């Protein structure tokens, strides 16, 4: 049986992601993190609640907006920041940047900005997990746009046909860059409804309600872990900032300001705070802890060496292992 949502822990996880993202956003205009960065501010509940109930051996995959998933799965903060700063000590040794985070020790396998690019890879990892009789599951996070790609449907089909231990997690934030759902996907159909077409259990929940995300994911994970095949989850959420970069983009006018304000009022962190979680004293302690951690992590990342240009050809082909 899955346990009830550990709200104080989830609060801490969400707050930590938020504070890290805010710190990146603050420093981004300095022009030293020279790679595209897709912030997940406002969307912290799904990473916290889904990754919060995964074992280290469970393997997580993500897309371009991956910081939250990486951090919630236990990805190393210094290595992530060093990657954004283009350092040799970055999690991808500076080769990939924000869009290619990785921490194999934490079970965060890969993230990539080509939409749906990692979905079939997660299915492949689930397939090989069954070959080696492992109990680990694959969890792949993607956005609403990725469900428009053929690779998503091909992956859903195959995962269902083979009853593979993979959890498909769609974070539906209603926009693909600046394009609204209308015209991209049929009106009146939820993304979760597509599970039925693949004979796959699916569920839909408020992605800004961390307890609801926890419950929904717990049920699905129990099923996936139990060998009953894949599940599809759709969580509705909202990106507060621009598609890519540290600023609001209200001036572009593609999202009504009432809509943006409405979603900001549905902040997943504030929601718990209103319920008295975790309490003022605990929150103060968390803030102090995270502030110290983040400051130290930035200092370590910024002090790290740049890659040597003579190593341009490194990692193109593996050496003899």
């Amino acid at each position: 049986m899955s346990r009830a949502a550990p709200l104080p822990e989830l609060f801490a996880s969400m707050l930590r992601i938020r504070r890290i993202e805010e710190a990146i956003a603050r420093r981004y205009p300095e022009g030293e993190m020279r790679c595209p960065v897709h912030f997940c501010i406002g969307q912290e509940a799904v990473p916290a609640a889904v990754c919060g109930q995964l074992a280290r051996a469970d393997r997580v995959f993500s897309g371009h907006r991956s910081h939250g998933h990486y951090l919630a799965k236990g990805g190393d903060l210094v290595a992530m920041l060093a990657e954004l700063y283009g350092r040799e000590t970055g999690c991808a040794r500076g080769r990939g940047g924000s869009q290619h985070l990785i921490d194999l020790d934490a079970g965060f396998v890969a993230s990539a900005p080509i939409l749906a690019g990692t979905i079939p890879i997660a299915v492949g990892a689930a397939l090989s997990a069954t070959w080696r009789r492992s109990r680990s599951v694959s969890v792949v996070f993607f956005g609403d746009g990725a469900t428009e790609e053929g690779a998503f449907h091909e992956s859903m089909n195959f995962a269902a046909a083979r009853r593979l231990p993979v959890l498909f997690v769609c974070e539906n934030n209603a926009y693909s860059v600046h394009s609204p759902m209308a015209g991209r996907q049929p009106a009146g159909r939820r993304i979760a409804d597509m599970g039925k077409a693949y004979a796959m259990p699916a569920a839909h929940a408020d992605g800004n309600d961390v307890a609801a995300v926890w419950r929904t994911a717990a049920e699905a994970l129990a099923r996936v872990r139990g060998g009953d095949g894949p599940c599809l989850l759709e969580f509705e959420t909202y990106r507060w900032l621009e598609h890519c970069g540290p600023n609001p983009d209200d001036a572009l006018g593609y999202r009504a300001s009432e809509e943006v304000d409405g979603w900001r009022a549905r902040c997943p962190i504030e929601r718990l705070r209103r319920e008295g979680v975790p309490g003022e004293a605990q929150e103060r302690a968390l803030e102090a802890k995270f502030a110290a951690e983040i400051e130290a992590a930035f200092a370590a990342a910024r002090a790290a060496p740049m890659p040597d240009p003579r190593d341009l050809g490194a990692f193109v082909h593996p050496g003899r292992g």
Partner: protein
Amino acid sequence: MRARTFAQAIHEGLAQAMAEDPRVCLMGPGVPGPTGIFGTTTGLAERFGAERVMDMPSSEQAMTGFALGATLDGYRPVVVHMRVDFAVLAMDQMVNQVAKWHFMYGGRLRAPIVFRLIVGRGWGQGPQHSQSLQAWFAHVPGFKVAMPASPRDAKGLLVAAIRDDSPVVLVEHRWLYGLSGDVPETLYETPLGVARIARPGRHATVAATSYMVIEALRAADRLAALGIEIEVVDMRSLVPLDVSTLCESVARTGHLVVADTGSVAFGAGAEIAATAAERAFAHLRRAPVRIGLPHYPSPTAPALADAYFPRAVDIERALATLLDVDPARLPAEDPPHGRWRDTPDPSFRGPY
């Protein structure tokens, strides 16, 4: 002189071609959106309607088929990919259907589609957002491939591509969008398959594509101070390749450096150099030299990206070797405008 930026020139070409021919339509994710594909499509949906300026789901493969299907009723779609890399998701439809459409049905069908592919280089766009894959498309029979390097040609080649009954791949380099130059107001074509002498010179030829034309002109400027006169040939098209302009230039100068934005290995530069070697061998005093990307994926970190992308200084060094100029005589490279060289000018900012 009617100064317009490269991006404005594309916008004007699209607007005029759509006004001229109601069968021309635009499609791609973000095409009618608020940032308008770097400003190249801004306002077109309002002017021509949502039916002709279509937003699209992230379904590159199927979108290509949608465009091909629409050609059956005479439409002439312009398909836009914000990054060259996104067109990779459409390769089956592009290579197996579109390119061969006319041929495999014995000339009964045509695929007059324009594909605008944008090279995203800069500010850590990295392995999946800054590839320059023109050689892939040039390698497949059936496509025409062009790479404008000036605002005038950005409009002219686009108009020629739209009017052409073959599928045409236009590779646009993002670092050119802010470039300003003379753009006639009339609706004109830059013919596909015709190169341009961007700068005449008698000591060596630099045949360049896309943004490397800018780097070649920079190199030519700097070498002029040493009395070395470089002829810069802007190839403009890869397919058809303007063999005569290339070979006539080589015949005049006796030396060839090829500068392409893609990989040297198996690249467009290889085709250009090989063509010159085959067709103008007697005029070449030394083996041609290719400048382009090393055979590595594009790195994100600026410390690596600065070493990865070739610049004017690389062209200058190649020319110095060919022309027996002591490299010590080469002018020192201009310092970058900031700490790094991962942006074309200070106005170019990240992140997107």
